[in-house]
C-alpha cells in the first residue's frame, strides 16, 4: 500500500515526512521538493512520473541516501537516514539499497561477473560464497552465459540486466530505478520491465522507479505524479489511497 498524506501505518517500509529539498543556484533558491509525505510498504512497486525538473530523480536520490534533504525525515525499515553521518549513510546504502541507472553505469574494465561482484566485496563473504551469489544473480537475469563478457561486448538490454544483477546480488531492502528503460529499445525495455516485475512478484522486492514512459509506469502497482516538487495525484490498479502533500 502506498500513501502520500503522511498518515501511513507505523509498519511501512519507507516513511517520508515533510521532505523539502532546496538547491541554491547563484543567489536564487530553487525548491525542488516541498513538504513531501510518502509511505511505501514492503513489496510495493511504485512508479514516479512527472515532467523534467519536477524532482523525480532528486526524490530517488534522497530515498537512496545519495543526497540529504533540506528538511524532513526519511525512515527505512526503522532506520532514520536523514541524520546519519556520511560514512554511516554509505554503509547503510551498501546493506539496504539496490541502484539501477538509466545508463547502466557498469565499470567498463570489469567483466559482467566482476561488476556484479562489486557490492559483495564490501561484505565478509568468502570468494566461493561471492561466486555463488554472483552466479545466482546473473542466472536470475538470464545472463549466466555472459559472465566473462565485458560491458562493451553486451547489448544495451544485457548491460541493464547486468546492472540489475548488481543491484540485487547483495539482497538489498529495496531497489531504486532511475529511468531503467530510458536508453533501451522497446523490446529490450519490455524484457527489463518483465525482469523487474518478476523481482517484485517472485522475490518480494520493493521497487521505486522513476520514468517518463507511461507504458513503463503502467507496469508498476502504483503510479505517483510529481509536479513542481509536490505529489499532486496518484493512481494505481489496486485502488491505492493517495493525495497531494499538505
Amino acid at each position, binding site marked *: 500500500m502506498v500513501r502520500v498524506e503522511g498518515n501511513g501505518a507505523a509498519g511501512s517500509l519507507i516513511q517520508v515526512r515533510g521532505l523539502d529539498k532546496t538547491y541554491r543556484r547563484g543567489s536564487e533558491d530553487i525548491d525542488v521538493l516541498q513538504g513531501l509525505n510518502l509511505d511505501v510498504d514492503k513489496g510495493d512497486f511504485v512508479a514516479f512520473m512527472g515532467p523534467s525538473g519536477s524532482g523525480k530523480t532528486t526524490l530517488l536520490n534522497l530515498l537512496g541516501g545519495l543526497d540529504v534533504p533540506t528538511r524532513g525525515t526519511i525512515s527505512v525499515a526503522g532506520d532514520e537516514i536523514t541524520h546519519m553521518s556520511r*560514512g554511516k549513510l554509505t554503509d547503510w*546504502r551498501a546493506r539496504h539499497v539496490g541502484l539501477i541507472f538509466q545508463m547502466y553505469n557498469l565499470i567498463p574494465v570489469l567483466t559482467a561477473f566482476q561488476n556484479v561482484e562489486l557490492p559483495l566485496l564490501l561484505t565478509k563473504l568468502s570468494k566461493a560464497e561471492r561466486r555463488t551469489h554472483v552466479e545466482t544473480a546473473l542466472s536470475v537475469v538470464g545472463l549466466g552465459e555472459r559472465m566473462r563478457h565485458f560491458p562493451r561486448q553486451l547489448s544495451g538490454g544485457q548491460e541493464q540486466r547486468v546492472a540489475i544483477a548488481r543491484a540485487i546480488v547483495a539482497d538489498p531492502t529495496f531497489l531504486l530505478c532511475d529511468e531503467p528503460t530510458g536508453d533501451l529499445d522497446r523490446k529490450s525495455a519490455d524484457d527489463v520491465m518483465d525482469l523487474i516485475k518478476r523481482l517484485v512478484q517472485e522475490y518480494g522486492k520493493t521497487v521505486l522507479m522513476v520514468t517518463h514512459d507511461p507504458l513503463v509506469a503502467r507496469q508498476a502497482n502504483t503510479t505517483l505524479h510529481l509536479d513542481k516538487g509536490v505529489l499532486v495525484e496518484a493512481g494505481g490498479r489496486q485502488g491505492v489511497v493517495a493525495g497531494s502533500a499538505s
Partner: protein
Amino acid sequence: MKFGRLIWANLVRKKARLVLTIGSFAVALFLFALLGVVNDAFSRGANVVSANRLVTINRTSIINTIPLSYRDEILRIPGVRYITHDNWFGGVYQDPKNFFPQFVIDPENQRQVFPELIVPDDQWNAFLKDRQGAIVGADTMKRFGWKIGDRIPIRTTIYGLQDTTFEFNIDGVYHGEKPEDDQTQFWFQWEYFKESVPDRFKGQIGWYTVRIANPDDAPRIAKAIDNAYLNSPYETKTETESAFAEGWVKQFGNIKFLIMSIGTVVFFTLLLVTGNTMAISVRERTNELGVLKAIGFPDRAVLGFILGESMAIALAGCVGLLLALVAIPQLSRAMAGLLPPLLVTAKTLAYGVIAALVVGFASGILPAYGAMRMRVVTALRRV
C-alpha cells in the same frame, strides 16, 4: 587483496598511458641511481679514509713538491707512528685514454700506513727485491688483462722527462679490505723513480701520509708539522685524510650540489607529470567512482584505490633501478680511469624505492583526496 583486481583493471585500462608513465618513473629512477653512484664515487675518498691518517702537502699546491728530508723530522713529532711518501707519476699506458693513477711509493712504510690495501707477503717481498717492480690494484689488472710477471711500459712527460718510457714488472696485486676501496692504483718504487728523474726532483716528494697513534691528536700534530716549516721555502699544509679527500673532490666543482640540483629537478618534473596523469585518469572516471560510492564503497576505499594505482605505478617504475643495477657496472667499466669506480649499493637502491614511493604518494594524494570528498550525486551527474 579482494580490491586488487579493481585496482589492476583500472591501471591497465589505458595501456599506452600506463607504459609511458611507468617509463617516466623508470627513467627518473635510473637517473637517480646514476647520480647517486656518481656522487658516492666522488665522495668515497672521504668515506674510506682512516681517521688516524694525516696528509701533508706543499702549502702552495699539491703539484708543488716538498723535501724528502722532512720525513725523519715529522716522524719525531710525538704521536706520529708511521710516515710514507708518494709522488704522482701521471704516465700513459699505450694510449692516453687508458688512464689509471700511478704512484711512486715508499716501500718501507707503505703497508704500515695503508694496512687496508692488502698485498700477499710473497708478492710484496718479490716487489721489494725488484727495483722495476710494481704492485697493481686488482681492478686495473682485470681491466687490462695483466698477469703477475707481465712487463708493462708506461710513458711519462712530467718531472722534466720528455716522453720517457719506464718499464715495470708486475710483482703483485693488492686488494682493498672493503668493496669501496680503490683498486685501480699502480705502485712502483721510489728508488727506481729517483734514479731516472733530473737532480732537482731527486729529493722531492709529492706528499706525505702520516699515521698517528690517536685520532684525537690530529689537530695538534697537524699544527706541529706545519709550524715546523713555517717561513721555510717549502711551507706545508697538513690536514686529516678526510679533509684532504674532500678538498680533492671540490677541485671538480661542487659535485654534490650539482647532483642534488639535477635530482631535484628530475623528481619535481616527474611529480608534475605523474600528478597530472593521475588527475586526468581520475577525472575521466568520475562517474564510475560515483557509482562505486553509490553502491556503498566508503570514501576511504576510493582514496585507497587511487593511491594504490599511483603507488603501483611508482613501484613498477623501479624497473629503472634494476636497469641501473645492470647498466651502471658496464658504464663503470667503460669509464674506467675517467671516473672512480661506480658501485650500485643497496643503500642507493633503497633510497630509489623510497623516492619512488614518495613521488607515487604525492602524485596520487590530491586527485585521490578530491575523489574521496566528491559527493555521490555530483559524481553521478558527470558523464
